[in-house]
């Protein structure tokens, strides 16, 4: 790990300002992704801004009847919160399907959204990777791609976003609240928060330099059957190959986002309109633009079957 200086931020505004004035600075929340990457020298900040003391760690109701989740709320506390369990069960389920008990006790809402890909070539500093080193090439293309994305990919990067929580947030129409370095605030719909790789896979979100995530809000509860189904190589403690997060109403309509297949949680309005017609037509529409490799073509079938299982469970 490279050496770094360390400060505890005293306010959100101060944290944003400090980060914007130093391109080598990073925020640290739970630290479970950042420190992992720093040990491997994939992330090499020379300054860390500890944001754990900022007080943005509460879950409260919004005026509209939804819920505001502080950026520093731990994944365990979010999953176990009474309102979330009752009204946003999909979110609890997705969180509980991720990582381990120890990690969820540390991991935060914002850190989880901003966790980086698990592409093995991104982790191997001996291999070219456009996300790690801009312009160096993509080792996954032409390499081992079983875990990689099948849709929304580019010639520069075929990595997936590994978060389970983000898939639920996407299906539930979450909005990310931030404070910028100049003190201004903005609200970014989660749909626009994560980027597709394009020519710049190293830029993963729309966050600007120094911008701090302060909260994620959810709209008023939509009811329905809320299901998160994660398919992985082990029954516990493994990242998803494919996951489906869905809210299905009694008339068969609903909201559905898919994880493990793209650079961001994958949700398509026209596909959702197919939900009452069943898993096949919905999956076909979700993956209409898919460009799988020989090794990850199985994800196309897996999405359809996982969605089928979800719809069956929702009817039951």
């Amino acid at each position: 790990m490279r050496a770094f200086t360390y400060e505890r931020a005293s306010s959100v505004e101060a944290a944003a300002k400090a980060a914007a004035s130093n391109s080598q600075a990073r925020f640290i929340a739970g630290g479970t992704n950042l420190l992992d990457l720093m040990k491997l020298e994939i992330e090499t900040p020379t300054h860390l801004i500890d944001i754990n003391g900022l007080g943005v760690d509460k879950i409260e109701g919004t005026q509209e009847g939804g819920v505001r989740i502080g950026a520093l709320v731990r994944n365990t506390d979010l999953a176990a919160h009474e309102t979330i369990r009752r009204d946003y069960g999909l979110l609890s389920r997705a969180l509980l399907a991720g990582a381990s008990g120890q990690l969820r006790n540390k991991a935060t809402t914002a850190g989880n959204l901003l966790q980086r890909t698990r592409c093995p070539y991104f982790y191997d500093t001996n291999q070219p990777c456009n996300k790690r080193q801009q312009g160096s090439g993509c080792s996954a293309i032409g390499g081992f791609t079983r875990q990689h994305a099948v849709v929304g990919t580019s010639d520069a990067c075929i990595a997936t976003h590994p978060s389970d929580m983000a898939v639920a947030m996407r299906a539930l129409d979450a909005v990310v609240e931030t404070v910028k370095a100049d003190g201004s605030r903005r609200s970014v719909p989660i749909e626009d928060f994560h980027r597709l790789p394009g020519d710049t896979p190293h830029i993963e979100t729309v966050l600007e330099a120094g911008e701090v995530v302060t909260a994620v809000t959810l709209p008023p509860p939509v009811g329905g059957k809320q299901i998160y189904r994660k398919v992985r190589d082990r029954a516990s403690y493994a990242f998803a190959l494919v996951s489906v997060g869905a809210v299905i109403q009694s008339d068969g309509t609903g909201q559905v986002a898919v994880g493990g297949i793209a650079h961001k949680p994958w949700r398509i309005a026209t596909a959702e309109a197919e939900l009452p017609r069943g898993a096949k037509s919905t999956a076909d529409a979700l993956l209409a633009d898919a460009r799988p490799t020989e090794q990850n073509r199985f994800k196309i079938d897996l999405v359809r079957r996982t969605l089928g299982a979800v719809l069956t469970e929702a009817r039951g």
Partner: protein
Amino acid sequence: MASPIHLELSRPQLLISSVVTSVVTGTAAEAATAQSPGAEMPQNSKVSMIVNDERHEIEVDNRTSLLDALREHLRLTGTKKGCDHGQCGACTVMVEGRRINSCLTLAVMHQGDEITTIEGLGEPGNLHPMQAAFVKHDGFQCGYCTPGQICSAVAVLEEIKAGIPSHVTSDITAAAPLTTTEIRERMSGNICRCGAYSNIMDAIVEVAGTRA
């Protein structure tokens, strides 16, 4: 000017920083020059924490994980380093009453925190019931994962009692039942290379007072 501490890395720190010594040397030299806006700030910090009911003040390189602080600075070597990347659970300790992986958190981030390690749970002659149950049921072979397993197991029973749901809880709006399925899922962050899992389960089940 950066603190000279980087040029005087102790042997344990060298081993911890990287397996390739030449890389560490290069890093240290670079770190001394690569400071820009943070230049006046130190790369080491004083931190005070309460470990097993005893207050300790230590000065650490900012890079020091809580795990290394416990092992190398406080000589509490019961907590083990398996993967150093949050994957195995050998480094599990309780911070402010919650189990975490001590390898994936910095010591400087724990100013004032209360930490309980395997040594704090109980010691020979005065074992914690979970420690005694692991001995009775042979919940280990080599023993390397054991401190982490025991800390996790104690926390798991607390988490179930506190009503925290898990991936296998069928109704997350109700209290999670105290079953072996629940315990197994919640222990999945603790890997045992020797495969002592069934005896580990027997030990936890006995302490939980539950039936399979």
